[in-house]
């Protein structure tokens, strides 16, 4: 057996008495894809920071390339070939692809002058290593997220990386981009570089990993060959409980008039001739690849990018939705894909976020807010959606992904919409919170709300929806009853071209 590149033994770390990591051991061999799996707050990020030298462990041994390191600083880690690709990639949007790839290398060589021919040569060489081709002169800010990811990988390789740590690399990618990324990772692996792939998406882990390290509450629960694991086992290890999600059954009256009817809705260049209906209490899934028009359809229904032609009826009455205000007046709510920038005031308190949508209803007689009613509403929604926070006055950014999503949901629910559109409701949310969010959505539908879920997360659609529409190139190409469908069928239909 060859020598491991990295081996951590009995690493512990505590922050002010709270144990973030306890007795964690990890061994990574060259050319091995190791997945680090755990829920938010399980200690994943602390472990990454220790490997990157950003955080010093309280105890334990770190051995890199056979050498024991007493104290590992970030520069040492980089010198040993450990490269971390953070979730935000740390790229320069205003610089070209080539310069982004080559810059850190030039810096490491303490260059004072820039030789642009060399910059291009370095970038070309890095792209050849992972077998991709990108426009060297394009600005990174103008390329899609998936390409940014590739730029970050190339940059790491230019630094002669021996171990690349990818933190939640797939969060912003579509299924197809993820598969392309996996091809790249496999190329990297063939070059003898180890990859530590941090994720909470179980399907991905199973697809790519050679080995998986599952941690929970700072302790290793499993360190095993990925072939020995399956999804339900991993869920159990991650959360410490068996999550059995029940499928959603619609129990409404099929003869009742639909809550929302969409007829021949068209938005030039985005989608065309889209027709469907949604009944009270239904959960309708709309799926399709990125660019299929699914998000544009949602934006049209919510008045952000109004459709060019077609008809929208609510409870039988034709309505005109030309703006967000129109949509809100007609009882349509929308929870965006990117809750961080579009759905929440991150710096403001949870309480302020909860009432932001409904301030007008919370006034006393005059123009001022009725403090008691504001407080009642906040307490009510924190309780109803079980938002886990010690104090609703804390800023919204203090919450975990799953709880942030609940705040966005509660903000909308407080305004009592009739139709709620959820775009990627559990993107970036860990397994445990995800199933709880699904239960909340099902309960809301049970109370008569019409829900539309836009997602390419197939297990999610299968568990929550009673009907699923498939979009491709701006059209609805198929419609399924969930009960006639299996996950494999749906995956097959989604990626079939």
């Amino acid at each position, binding site marked *: 057996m060859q020598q491991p590149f990295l081996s951590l033994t009995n690493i512990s770390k505590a922050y002010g008495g709270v144990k973030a990591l306890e007795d964690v051991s990890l061994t990574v061999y060259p050319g091995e894809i190791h997945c680090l799996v755990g829920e938010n707050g399980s200690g994943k990020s602390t472990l990454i920071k220790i490997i990157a030298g950003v955080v010093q462990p309280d105890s334990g041994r770190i051995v890199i390339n056979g050498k024991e390191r007493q104290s590992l600083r970030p520069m040492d880690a980089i010198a040993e070939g450990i490269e971390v690709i*953070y979730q935000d990639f*740390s*790229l*320069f*949007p*205003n*610089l070209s692809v080539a*310069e982004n790839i080559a*810059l*850190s290398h*030039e*810096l*490491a060589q303490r*260059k*004072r*002058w*820039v030789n642009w021919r060399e910059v291009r040569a370095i970038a070309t060489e890095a792209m050849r290593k992972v*077998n*991709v*081709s990108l426009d060297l*002169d394009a600005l990174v800010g103008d390329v899609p997220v*998936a390409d940014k990811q590739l730029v970050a990988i190339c940059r790491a390789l230019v630094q002669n990386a021996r171990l690349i740590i990818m933190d939640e690399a797939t969060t912003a990618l579509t299924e*197809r981009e993820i*598969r*392309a990324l996996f*091809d*790249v990772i496999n190329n990297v692996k063939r070059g003898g570089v180890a990859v530590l792939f941090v994720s909470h998406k179980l399907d991905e882990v199973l697809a790519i990993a050679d080995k998986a390290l599952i941690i929970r509450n700072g302790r290793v629960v499993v360190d095993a060959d990925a072939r020995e694991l399956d999804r339900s086992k991993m869920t159990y290890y991650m959360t410490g409980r068996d999550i059995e999600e029940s499928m959603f059954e619609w129990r409404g009256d099929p003869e009742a008039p639909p809550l929302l009817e969409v007829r021949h809705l068209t938005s030039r*260049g*985005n*989608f065309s001739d889209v027709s469907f209906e949604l009944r009270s209490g239904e959960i309708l899934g709309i799926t399709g*690849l*990125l*660019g*299929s*028009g699914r998000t*544009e359809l949602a934006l049209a229904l919510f008045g952000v990018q109004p459709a060019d032609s077609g008809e929208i009826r609510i409870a039988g009455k034709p309505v005109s939705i030309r703006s967000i205000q129109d949509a809100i007046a007609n009882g349509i709510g929308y929870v965006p894909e990117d809750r961080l920038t579009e759905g929440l005031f991150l710096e403001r308190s949870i309480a302020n976020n909860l009432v932001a949508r409904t301030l007008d209803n919370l006034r006393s007689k005059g123009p001022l807010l009725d403090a008691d009613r504001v407080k009642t509403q906040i307490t009510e929604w924190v309780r109803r959606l079980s938002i886990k926070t010690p104090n609703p006055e804390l800023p919204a950014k203090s919450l975990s992904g799953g709880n942030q999503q609940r705040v966005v949901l509660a903000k909308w629910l407080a305004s009592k919409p009739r139709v709620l559109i959820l775009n990627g409701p559990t993107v970036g949310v860990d397994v445990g919170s995800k199933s709880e969010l699904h239960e909340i959505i099902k309960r809301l539908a049970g109370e008569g709300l019409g829900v539309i879920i836009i997602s390419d997360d197939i297990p999610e659609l299968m568990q929550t929806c009673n009907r699923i529409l498939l979009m*491709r*190139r*701006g059209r609805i190409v198929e419609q399924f009853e969930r009960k006639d469908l299996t996950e494999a069928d749906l995956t097959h239909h989604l990626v079939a*071209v």
Partner: protein
Amino acid sequence: MLGRLLSKQETLVGITLLGLCLLIGAINPVFWTPGNWFDLARSATVMGIFAIGVLIVLISGGIDVSFTAIAVFSMYSTTVLLRNLNYQGGMWLFFLISALIGLGLGLINAFFIARFRLPTLIVTLGTQSMFRGFLLFVIGSRIIRDIPPGMAEYSRAFLFTVTDERGVTVGLHSAVLWLVAIAVLAFVILRYTMLGRSIYALGGSREAAERVGFNVTLTQVFIYAFVGVLAGIAGMIYGGLNRQANAQDIVGQELDVIAATVLGGASIMGGRGSVIGTLLGVMLVVVMSNSLVLMGIPATWQRVVIGAIIIIGTAVPVLRTLRQQRRAVRVETEGESLAPAGGRA
């Protein structure tokens, strides 16, 4: 390649500038006389040097409104000092002292910005007021007309002169060499040195710049010190050309300079901008004010026209970005089936 060239703000400003020159030249033939062009060069020199300083600050993601105060402070103090010393020598010492004073004041900005990471607008608003107040109350506020001989001679330091058919002699002032030298220097720094790239990197993402290993503090110190030096030189040129030292001058021009720089393609959000674009932006503003005079439009209207140009000039790139984004969505939608998964690998 051509598409990329055409989509640049620089190209757009260049074409506008050319069109404007042709238009004004057609209305008033005086526009194309050497005399008028020497005049334009003279007006563009001080503004151009200021604008290059502003460009570097804008690229780094900051904004500086104190450079006019630094300029007038350096120029006035230098004049007072050398006059009191009864200095009879040449202009070079004026430039040297003024640049050093500018450097010192720039370092004060750098200290607050780099050391305490304060917002650049707030710091420079504060220092602008401080520098100016200190100048007026401590150093002096009266207009000095009996300037030392070296400075007075400098106002006639022409590169060459031309006598036109009416017998009037006009000359191209040598100060324009300063602009050329500074523009070349700034171009080389920004494009071919790691220091210059660190300025772009800082403007693109401060956090990423730190992670990649740039010494961001040092970069910021350089930026504000360099702007201080440029302001000192530009201020001295301004005093020399006007043959007087007026402590009330220059401050108030900062917005015009920032506007000309933004017009030339520098992003107010940081990370983008070029020396060529900046020079074109400055020329556009200068030609515009000059032509309004030539066309007999009252000076009061100039402010309105310049304001309108600034708004239009900054709106065009924004509109273009919006259109590109919309097109990108469309291409993605239509390209769905055309580019299968293997397309990238």
